[in-house]
């Protein structure tokens, strides 16, 4: 049968549309490169470029023949390879126009896969995938749906024979592309870091959304050719086709917009773009068969299909880098089914809508199953025997621009250098500076910053070293001081001990002299000396001898007190303490009982508040309180009724938080009196040894009481202070640690 004659305007229209479809290659490239990360963008772009020339060649050699050659039982074309047969037959050259148009369609199906598998597929691996899609999958299904011999031999593809309708290729091109992508993803697996162990998806941000938008525009433009040119003639239907195409794109975009707005609170750009594309894909099957109103519906349904499929993919942890599967497979399925739902009656097979829907469903299922299964097999085999499909994890991290093509991106390199420095914390490393570039300028700034950082860091190290050295010295000095103090105490202890023996002698013989004096007095009194001599003798004894003895005696007593005091004080430095729980209330009660006579004598009122249980040496604690309470009573003002309060500050007064914590570690005790108070000049020396400030009072006592008290308190890890106003009274405050350090 001779080919139908094609008027020049049809040829022109078909060729121009074919060129528009070729523009879709650019569209896909822009879309995909914009939706992936910068480090892979070059790789994605070149994949899009590559799949076209591979698919074209394959389609010329093998594909066209399989698709449009004389049908062998409705399953596969059997001739027309390299177009040789048709070229020979064709006198008007329509074969070339037709082939070109079909070729760009094949290229579209192939290039769909590039997006979905992006960012993890090896370039040679992708070349194999392109080949399989364009040489095997696309032509075979295409034959079933559209085939039947280029020259319209009586045998059609079996699906076509059943009345299956796909006007411009929702299934032939888009479902095939989408399903092939799915098959590849089963083999490849998701990108690193895309899915967390709990199944939630991590959003991987595209590097250039405006580029992706440009891509979508280009696709939309190209689609006019895609659908319009499928009429293969410039006839009445073309206007309708183009209008339907446009309307579906619009409602698809709207659905994408609303869906994203509702789900995420803001309209995500990717969602809007994919919505448009989904609408376009859906209407592709039916654009010549439906009314514009139906086209609106079909576009919207396509958008819905995109979103549902996208959710399903996430649920099943399938990682489609650009949502190619939702757009092409998901909306494609919708598109195929919509033919049955919306096509005008004249296009229905056997005039029955039910039958048409059934055939559409069948065709859709066959497409899906066939493509996924066969492509999966081919890809699996290819991965095993021809070339590895997936990149190394390290290459995936570094980016495919670099790993597949050795293409450097200066900014990425800079970022990687900085990341390296951060990771290794090696302050001596610097980034490479590419002169005369923006990245180079930043790299240089960064390097200067690193120089400064390194310098400052070194300075800091020095200071820390110096500080450490100071600290060590300080610790050393501290140790020496403690040692020194201990030695001093031992010395004082030793000396005071040694002084006791001579004191015993002095005291003892002083007493002997006194006895002797008494005897002498008696002797003289009873003697027979002349009265004047007797008187003189007695006077000598009483005035000179007795007086001298009295003073010597007093001095010896004073020495005794001093040595006793020194002894007691030095002993508090090293005497071993018991660590017990001491009920302070009962200790104070005991002390007050012992001092009850003094209290009565002075007519003092002593008030005791609630007191805590202290941890420490019971004897030492009693010493402390006996000393302080004793002092309070001793130094009361005789001119007014004495009042002594012994208490416990349970509320920590509001101070800054850092001190509050410190304060909480101690019990805060006090002894208050309204006595004579302490003069200002005396305060700094109050706890020092042998200081007494009211010489008229208390000749007893050795002047070591407060020194001992302080030493005891310090040895328990506490502190003692005094507040006092002369003439009004004093408060002694003791901070006693709640926990004893061992």
């Amino acid at each position: 049968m001779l080919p139908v004659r094609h008027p020049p305007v049809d040829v022109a229209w078909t060729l121009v549309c074919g060129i528009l479809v070729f523009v879709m290659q650019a569209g896909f490239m822009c879309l995909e490169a914009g939706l992936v990360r910068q480090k892979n963008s070059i790789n994605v772009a070149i994949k899009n470029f590559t799949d076209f020339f591979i698919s074209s060649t394959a389609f010329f050699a093998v594909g066209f023949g399989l698709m449009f050659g004389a049908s062998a039982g409705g399953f596969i074309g059997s001739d027309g390879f390299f177009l040789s047969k048709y070229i020979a037959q064709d006198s008007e050259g329509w074969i070339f126009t037709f082939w070109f148009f079909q070729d760009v369609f094949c290229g579209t199906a192939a290039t769909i896969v590039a997006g979905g598998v992006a960012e993890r597929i090896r370039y040679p691996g992708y070349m194999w995938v392109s080949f399989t899609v364009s040489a095997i999958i696309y032509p075979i299904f295409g034959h079933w749906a559209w085939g039947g011999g280029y020259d319209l031999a009586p045998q059609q593809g079996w699906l076509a024979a059943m009345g299956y309708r796909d006007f411009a290729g929702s299934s032939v091109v888009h479902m095939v592309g989408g399903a092939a992508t799915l098959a590849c993803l089963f083999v490849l697996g998701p990108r690193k870091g895309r899915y967390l162990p709990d199944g939630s998806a991590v959003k991987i941000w595209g590097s250039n959304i405006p580029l992706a938008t440009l891509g979508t525009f280009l696709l939309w433009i190209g689609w006019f050719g895609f659908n319009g040119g499928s009429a293969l003639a410039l006839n009445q239907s073309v206007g309708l086709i183009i209008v339907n195409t446009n309307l579906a794109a619009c409602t698809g975009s709207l659905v994408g917009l609303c869906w994203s707005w509702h789900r995420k609170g803001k309209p995500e750009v990717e969602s809007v773009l994919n919505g448009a594309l989904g609408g376009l894909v859906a209407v592709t099957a039916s654009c010549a068969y439906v009314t514009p109103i139906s086209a609106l519906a079909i576009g919207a349904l396509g958008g819905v299909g995109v979103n549902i499929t996208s959710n399903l993919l996430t649920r099943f942890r399938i990682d489609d880098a650009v949502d190619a599967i939702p757009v092409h497979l998901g909306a494609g399925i919708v598109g195929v089914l919509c033919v049955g739902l919306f096509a005008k009656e004249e296009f229905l097979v056997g005039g029955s809508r039910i039958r048409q829907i059934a055939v559409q469903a069948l065709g859709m299922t066959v497409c899906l199953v066939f493509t996924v299964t066969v492509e999966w097999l081919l890809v699996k085999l290819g991965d095993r025997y021809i070339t590895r499909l997936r990149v190394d994890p390290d290459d995936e991290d570094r980016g495919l621009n670099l790993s597949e093509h050795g293409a450097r991106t200066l900014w990425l390199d800079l970022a990687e250098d900085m990341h390296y420095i951060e990771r290794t914390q090696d302050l001596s490393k610097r980034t490479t500076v590419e002169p005369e570039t923006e990245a180079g300028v930043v790299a240089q700034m960064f390097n200067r910053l690193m120089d400064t950082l390194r310098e400052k860091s070194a300075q800091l190290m020095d200071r820390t070293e110096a500080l450490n050295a100071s600290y060590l010295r300080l610790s050393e000095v501290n140790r020496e001081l403690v040692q020194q103090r201990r030695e001093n105490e031992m010395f004082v202890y030793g000396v005071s001990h040694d002084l006791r023996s001579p004191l015993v002698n002095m005291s003892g013989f002083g007493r002997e002299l006194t006895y002797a004096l008494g005897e002498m007095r008696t002797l003289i009194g009873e003697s027979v000396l002349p009265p004047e001599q007797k008187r003189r003798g007695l006077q000598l004894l009483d005035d000179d001898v007795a007086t001298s003895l009295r003073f010597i005696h007093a001095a010896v007593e004073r020495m005794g007190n001093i040595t006793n005091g020194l002894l007691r004080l030095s002993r508090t430095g090293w005497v071993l303490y018991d660590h017990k729980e001491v009920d302070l209330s009962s200790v104070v009660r005991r002390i007050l009982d012992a001092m009850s006579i003094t209290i009565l004598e002075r007519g003092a009122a002593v008030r005791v508040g609630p007191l805590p249980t202290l941890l420490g040496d019971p004897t030492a604690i009693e010493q402390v309180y006996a000393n302080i309470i004793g002092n309070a009573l001793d130094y009361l003002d005789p001119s007014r009724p004495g009042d002594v309060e012994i208490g416990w500050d349970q509320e920590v007064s509001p101070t800054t938080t850092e001190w509050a914590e410190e304060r909480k570690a101690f019990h805060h005790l006090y002894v208050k009196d309204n006595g004579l108070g302490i003069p200002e000049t005396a305060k700094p020396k109050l706890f020092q040894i042998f200081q007494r400030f009211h010489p008229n009072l208390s000749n007893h006592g050795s002047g070591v009481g407060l020194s001992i008290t302080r030493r005891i308190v310090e040895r328990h890890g506490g502190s003692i202070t005094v507040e006092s106003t002369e003439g009004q009274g004093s408060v002694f405050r003791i901070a006693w640690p709640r926990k004893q350090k061992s």
Partner: protein
Amino acid sequence: MDKMAPVTILVVEDDEGQSFLIEKHLKRSGIVNNIVHCGSGQDAADYIWAKGPHANRAKNGPLVVLLDIKLPGMDGIELLQRIKADPATKNIPVLLLTTTSDPRDIAKCYELGCSGYVTKPLEADAFSEAIRRIGLFIQVVSLPQES
């Protein structure tokens, strides 16, 4: 009352003054016993075991020792140890009479088996009273015979 052998009091004290005072106060308290003074630990040991310069001392009956800790050469604690270590002498009552009141020394002496520990008071009256009481104690106490 049985006629007991008269007790000899051995005062081991290196300070002459205190030695003098002790004897004075003992006599004042009514002691008529024989009082022997030794100025060092070695001298006292010689007396107790009848060695050296005291080799030919008379057996004077039971012994009571008033011992100071601070002695030249052998100190009081060592002498106490020796006395208590020898079965022949370990029953001799030893009273420590010393200026020091270090609780460690007190504990050690009792551990070694002293019969008492008296810290010499600084105060003259208290001192004489303490010696007087020691004297009274010696008068009433029964002592083992010297072997």
